[in-house]
């Protein structure tokens, strides 16, 4: 195979917070891909009937499952906000270095804020109905 030019190895660059955001976008994306299984499990249990839904509901309301659900919510908040940043880049906006560094901070702030508000509202995702 011919030697093709490669982009410089990661270790060549001085670490910048924008790099952390970049890899976090992938990590949260892959994490949410696994979450699809839970989403479909929830839908399928509802389709299977009342008993199946009650079992699924109890499982998803367990302590460990709640931690996973909150992690999926956090991943969603980040991936959503940073995804909008990516779409802006694709449309040609905010590509300058200083802009990318500033929007990185905006993304983190918005994602944390969205997560806190949603986690508070959903805090007990399978709370007893009022």
């Amino acid at each position: 195979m011919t030697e093709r030019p490669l982009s410089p190895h990661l270790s060549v660059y001085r670490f910048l917070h924008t790099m952390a955001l970049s890899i976090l976008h992938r990590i949260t994306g892959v994490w949410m891909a696994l979450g699809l299984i839970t989403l479909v499990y929830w839908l399928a249990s509802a389709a299977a009937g009342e008993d199946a839904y009650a079992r699924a509901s109890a499982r998803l309301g367990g302590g460990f499952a709640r931690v996973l659900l909150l992690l999926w919510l956090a991943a969603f908040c980040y991936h959503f906000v940073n995804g909008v940043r990516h779409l802006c880049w694709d449309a040609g906006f905010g590509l300058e270095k200083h802009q990318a560094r500033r929007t990185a901070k905006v993304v983190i702030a918005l994602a944390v804020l969205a997560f806190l508000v949603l986690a508070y509202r959903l805090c007990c995702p399978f709370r007893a109905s009022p």
Partner: protein
Amino acid sequence: MSLRSPLGKVLGRGSAGEGVGHWWAQRASALLLVPLSVWFLVALLELPLTDYAAVSIWMARGWNPVWLALLLLSLCWHSRLGVQVVIEDYVHGPSLKFASLLVNSAAHLLVLAVGLYALLRLAMRGAT
């Protein structure tokens, strides 16, 4: 076996026009997911999630099955394309890469099929 060079075979055929297809599909599904995922989250916030009757009625009511199906479709589409890029970047060795890509596509297709089947059952039950 052909004696024509690989270059000779493709010259004059023009580009397949699919070079940016993956890129566009990822952006199109992302755009679809913006309103759909917000709609779904807001609905989740308002639903009493432990109440089977309330949840199953909501899933089958009005246009909800359509939005849920669209949500599932764009989620699986977007997710498959994203995981595909991650595999292409980090999994090395042609056969392992090929196998991983195959498993990725198959798994997303399976998740989508199960989800759509569940929605169909819920919606049909609502119709009777």
